[in-house]
Every structure is written in C-alpha cells, then in structure tokens.
C-alpha cells in the first residue's frame, strides 16, 4: 500500500482523491517507535521533493515531514525555501522540526529570498525561538521594508528571551515599526515580570511610555508599570 502511495505521488495533482496517499499518513503512525522504518519513510519522502512531482504532491510530502522530519530531510526542504510556490510548505515542516539544522537552514536562506518569503521565514524563526536567531532578526529591525522590520519585531517577541528583549529595547522605531516593536516589547516584559525580573519589565514599559505611544500602547504599558509595582 505504501509503495502504491509513493507511486501515486508521481502523478498526484489537484483533483485526485487524497485517499490514494493515505497510506503515507498510516505509515507515520505505524512506524512510531521503529527508528529504522521511520528513517526509511523520511528518506523516501525527502526524495520526492527532489523530483518534478507536482506542487500538490510536494504539499503532501511536506505535511508528512512536519511529523517525521529530522535533520536528514532539512537539505531537501531548504532547497524549496526560495521557491515562491513551495516556500510555505517547506516551512510547514521546517518550523516544527526540532533539530537546530532546521533553524540554520532558515537563517541561511533568509538573505537570499524576496521580501514576502523573508517575512514567512522570519515568522518561523520566531516560533522556533532559538537564541541564535536574535542577532539576524535584530539586524532586520532596521530593514527598509517596514513589513520585514515588523515581522522581525514580532519574531523577537516570540523568542521572548532577555537578549530578544534587549534587541527590541535598543531598536529605533519608525512609523512603520512602532506598534510591532511595542507589542513585542510588552510580550517580553510580561515574561520578565513573570520570571521575577521586575527591573527589566519596568524599564521596558517606561521606555514605551516615554516614546509618545498610541493610546492602546499607553494603556497597556501603564497597566504593565502598575503590575510591576504590585509584584
């Protein structure tokens, strides 16, 4: 059945009954706890990404690699990152593969893709939460494209570490990035406060209040200062 499913991937396209590739999902379940079988399954899946299989077929493969992917399939997925049609599904797997190779692949591809794809990769780096992403994301806070800079701010908020908080604290907000930097900064401040780092949290809120914030940020930061006082 699994062999037939892989055979079906060669001609799989929109409109084909997805039941023909269901054995791949079944194999994900049946190989759990069997390292050799999982490795074989992963190898076969990654190999499809190197063929001229359709977008729909590679979509199926990336979904499967979200669950069974390891460092071994990162190169095949990384090769799709610059592809406008496949970049998202490559991230669909890479974002959830815990090995650091996945994060490194995203960071390596980052400077070489169009702004729209870059935003997606930035978001995935934020979700992965690796400290090694803070420096490249900090650099992107000053990107000339406000959408890229906003995405970098949001991602730093997701990483939500002391170094990410410092990067946001030292950022120079523009009209296009001010709201995103404020939101990400408050996300960090909430974590600082929860961890007992009242000094860092209060400094973050006070900096936001001193920067002529929007009404909603002023309200939120004021509540933050009050929370620091009450802690």
């Amino acid at each position, binding site marked *: 059945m699994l062999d037939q499913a892989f055979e079906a991937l060669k001609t799989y396209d*929109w409109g084909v009954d997805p039941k023909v590739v269901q054995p791949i999902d079944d194999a994900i379940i049946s190989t759990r706890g069997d390292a050799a079988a999982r490795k074989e399954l992963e190898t076969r899946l990654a190999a499809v990404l190197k063929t001229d299989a359709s977008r729909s077929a590679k979509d199926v493969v990336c979904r499967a690699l979200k669950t069974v992917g390891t460092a071994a399939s990162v190169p095949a997925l990384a090769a799709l990152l610059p592809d406008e*049609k496949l970049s*998202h599904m490559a991230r669909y797997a890479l974002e*959830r593969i*815990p090995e650091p190779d996945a994060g490194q692949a995203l960071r390596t591809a980052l400077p070489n893709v169009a702004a*729209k794809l870059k935003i997606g990769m930035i978001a995935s780096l934020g979700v992965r939460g690796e400290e090694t992403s803070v420096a490249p994301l900090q650099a992107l806070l000053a990107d000339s494209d406000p959408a890229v800079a906003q*995405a970098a701010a949001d991602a730093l908020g997701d990483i939500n570490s002391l170094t990410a908080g410092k990067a946001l604290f030292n950022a120079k907000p523009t009209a296009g990035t001010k709201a995103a930097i404020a*939101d990400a900064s408050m996300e960090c401040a909430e974590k600082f406060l929860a961890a007992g780092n009242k000094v860092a949290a209060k400094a973050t809120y006070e900096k936001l209040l001193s920067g002529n914030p929007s009404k909603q940020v002023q309200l*939120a930061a004021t509540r933050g200062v009050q929370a620091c006082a009450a802690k």
Partner: protein
Amino acid sequence: MKTNQTTRRDFLKTTGLTTAAIGFPTIIPATALGNADTPPPSERIVMGGIGLGNMGSGDLGNFLNNPNVQYVAVCDVRGNVRNERKNQVDGKFGNKDCKAYVDFRELLAREDIDAVHIATPDHWHAIQVIEACRNGKDVYCQKPESRTLREGQLMVDTVRRYGRVFSGGSQRVLEDYRDVVRKCWSGELGAIQSINVNVGPLPQACNLPAEPCPDDMDWEMWLGPAPWGPYNAKRCSGSFSIDGSSWRSFSDYSSGGLTDWGAHHFGGATFAADLRELQPTEVTYHDEGGKQYLTFKYPNGVLLTHNMPGKGNLEVVGTPGQKRAAKEVPQYSVKGGIYSDFLNCVRTRGNPFRAIEFAINTACVCHLGMIAYTLKRSLKWDAAKQQFAGDEEANRFVDQARREPWQL
C-alpha cells in the same frame, strides 16, 4: 465612545436639516438621530464586521438591530457579500455611510471603531483577533476561536495585554444545556465524576480541483495564512455541512465537527462540570473494536469523554446520594443574550460570559482531541507550559506555519 462623536452627531443633525431644506424626504430613521428608545449615535458603540457570510450575517443582524450600536463598516473578501451587507447597514441607518473593505486591516485601523465582530473561517480568527486588540478594538469572535493551541495562548495574552473586552461566539454554552447545568450546579448530582460529549465528524484533507474563481472574490485573502490551494466553491463554502462540501470539512481551515459543534458541546460540558477555568492534563486515546473515543482528565480528577460508546451527549456521572451545596450559576451580565452581554461589557469593561480564557480552554479540549485522534495515541498536556510533556512528536502539532506574509 470616541472624542469626535459629538462632531458626528452634529454632522448628522446638520445634514438632516439640510436635506429637509432642499426638499428631500424628511423621514429620518430613529437610528440616525435617536429617540427615547434609541440612543443618539454619539452614545452608541461604533462597530464593524469582518467575515459576513452565514454566521457573520447572523451576527451582523443581531448587532445591527441593537439600539446601542452604530454600525459603520463591513469587510468580506467576496464582493457580492460585501455589497449586500453594506446595503443592509445603509438601509438600517438611512444613509450611505457604511464603508466596505476587502482587507480587514484597513477596517481595524479606523480610530472611530470601538468594537468588531469576526466570523471569518477559523484559520483567520487568531490573526484578526490579535490585530483588532493591537488596534484597541473590543472583539466578538465566532467559535471555535482558535485553530491551534499556540494561537489560543497568544490570543489570551493579547486580549489581556491591551485590556480588551472579548466574547467568544457560542450562545449555546449557556442557552442549550440549562437542565444539565442546573443539575450540576444545584448540587443534586453530588460531585461530578465525568461528563460525555458526542460530536463529529473529524476533518478531511482537501485536494479539490481548480475551478474558475469568481471575479469579485479575493482568493488570496480568503486563503490567508492557510496552505495554498486552488479556488473551488466547496473549499470555501460557508455551508454548515461537514461532508466535504464546505470549508468546515477540511483540515486546513477547521477541525471539522470536533471544533465546530464541538465548541458548543465541549463548552457546555465544561461549563456544566465547572471546568471552564481549567485545561486537561491528559488525553487517553481508546480504540476498542474499531471504535475510537477519548477521555480527557482534568487536574481536579473530573473526566470528560468524547464519543464514549453507550453514553449520551452531555450525559453526566455524579455521586448519587452525596448531594453537595448549590452554587450560583454564572449568567450573562444583562438580559438579551450573548450579543447584549458583549455590548454591555464593552460599556462596563467587564468580562463577558464567554471571556477569552473560557473560550480558549474549550478550544484547547478540541485541539488536544484532534491531535490525539491524528496521532492515534494518548497524550500528556502541561497547561502551564502549553506543551506536551516529553513528547517531541506531539509538540509539532501545537502550531503550524502560516503562509507568508501572515504571522501572529
């Protein structure tokens, strides 16, 4: 609600006088100027709606007919829906003031709007709720409020960060299960041991063929953060059927009946069993004779089962003969149902009955269940960390990558 509203009221009065003076009909609806039963616009809550198909249309009707609401903006990616709803709003207020948007971000950027209701497909909810909060809006959002576990936590954090009023959109939680709720909260069943929910089906993969996209539909905006797929009328139909003929059927946009009606039933069950403030710690996957079902275990020991053989929907197992003290059943803050509850809380800054934490805790049950059924095994959930304990594979399902340029 906003500082410029006196100006708007003056403007409406002025235009009313002007149109009378130049001979146009002088019948001005009470909704425009206010009367004994209808507050003037300056005292109304200024609202807009995002996603105005089946459920959104119903929500719009409820808000539009509330005398405390001044409705000013509609947003939908389908031109025909957008235009119909704009005309509906304009007809209500007797003017042409309602603005129509394709992109929700433009609506949310308006400073004169106090609150929005959101009834887009589920894969959009988190992005739009979070963006609304960042723009200082209060939010009524249809259920299921989130698509993933991570989305839910970020939604809670953002609503609380900005001090927004949020109501989830399941009126059934309070209104459909009154008898079960009364029995549980009155103490007559004793300590609750378990409660069962029957709901389904699970979603399916979508690989529908391409069809010509209507000219007045923005397909990229409909898909938004979901994986790309070609337009197909069934892929995006808002039909309530979960049989492959609507977006509710497909796993990229919904978890099928588990989250759709599940939001109502699990919401009702957790309310009845007083579990609203908790998330499960364990999900046990059962496969007995080809019949799959789940048991969720809560930190207080109460069990919530899903599709347990032989059990009815919201069937409760208590401790007969051990009657407990009655507790007062929580209610909406005012009469008039869930919409009035939300609007009242917008004014009072109170917490609606379906506050964000309760809504997301219900969605959490649905998502945990979906992951257990997907992986066909039991799971342990650490609610404090929002992670599966020591389960790297399950943690891959806490969230999923969004299609660029969308992110949370």
